[in-house]
């Protein structure tokens, strides 16, 4: 078998696995953040705008590792 073809196949497989597993953590984390923000908003509707702003920042931070895995997947696809 052509080793170059093997590298090509491994590249696509690795990018898929990287993105698939890397998306689990941010997904769960953002779900937890959203659920708790909704809890708090339901309890204190007058705080909703402050909570929304804090929630968006927290979402962005939870998303960071997902973005890292996207960057790694892109490097695997287009650079390696």
């Amino acid at each position, binding site marked *: 078998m052509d080793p170059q073809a093997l590298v090509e196949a491994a590249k696509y497989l690795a990018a898929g696995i990287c993105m698939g597993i890397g998306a689990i953590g941010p997904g769960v984390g953002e779900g937890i953040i959203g659920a708790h923000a909704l809890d708090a908003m339901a309890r204190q509707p007058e705080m909703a*705008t402050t909570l929304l702003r804090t929630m968006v920042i927290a979402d962005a931070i939870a998303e*960071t590792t997902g973005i890292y895995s*996207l*960057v790694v997947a892109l490097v695997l696809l287009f650079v390696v």
Partner: protein
Amino acid sequence: MGGIELAFDPVVVAVGLGVTAALALLFLWVRRGLPRDPDAPLSRRAAAVAWAADFFQDQVLGGAAPALAGRLLPLVVALFLYVLLCNWAGILPIPYAVSPTQNLNVTVGLALMVYGLTHVYGVRSKGVLGHLKGYLEPFPFLLPLNVVGDVGRTLSHGFRLFGNILGGALLTAVMGRLFAPVVVPAALNLWFGLGMGLIQALVFTLLAVAYIRATAE
């Protein structure tokens, strides 16, 4: 990082300059609509400016000290509008037009600018020594952690915008190639282009304000 290099992309530069020109025209147009006399009755443009200033004061700068908030307001409005228009430029029906923010050089450049501004505002409010002392807190032996934290924070600030915008653009392109070539990209552009562009511009601005407030307060 291998293929992601400091490349000069004329399209990105052109779209970035176009966005700058559009913003300059918008600001000049708004400025012309403002009455010279402060006691004149409120014009529509003046009301819009007041509403926008209130919105940014409450939603983006909410909780910041009033003196700092006043100095940050022009920066925040310009940063938000620039990133927003850059995100939205990708869905314009112009051939080859891409969002400048899906280029890593642009987003990391913006993040580095914000990182530099954290030092400017930190030194301005606390003095050079007071600002440098912030790196020894809460404990002096955490200095390496604080320095690494600065680097990681700035890089992830740039990567976040880059990854979200590029991811949306790639997904739209792949879906358009795989499925119906008209309807699906239109719907995806609506979400990833307009919706995500707005959310990510807001997130970028909010994080910039959070970083500057962390050093300046």
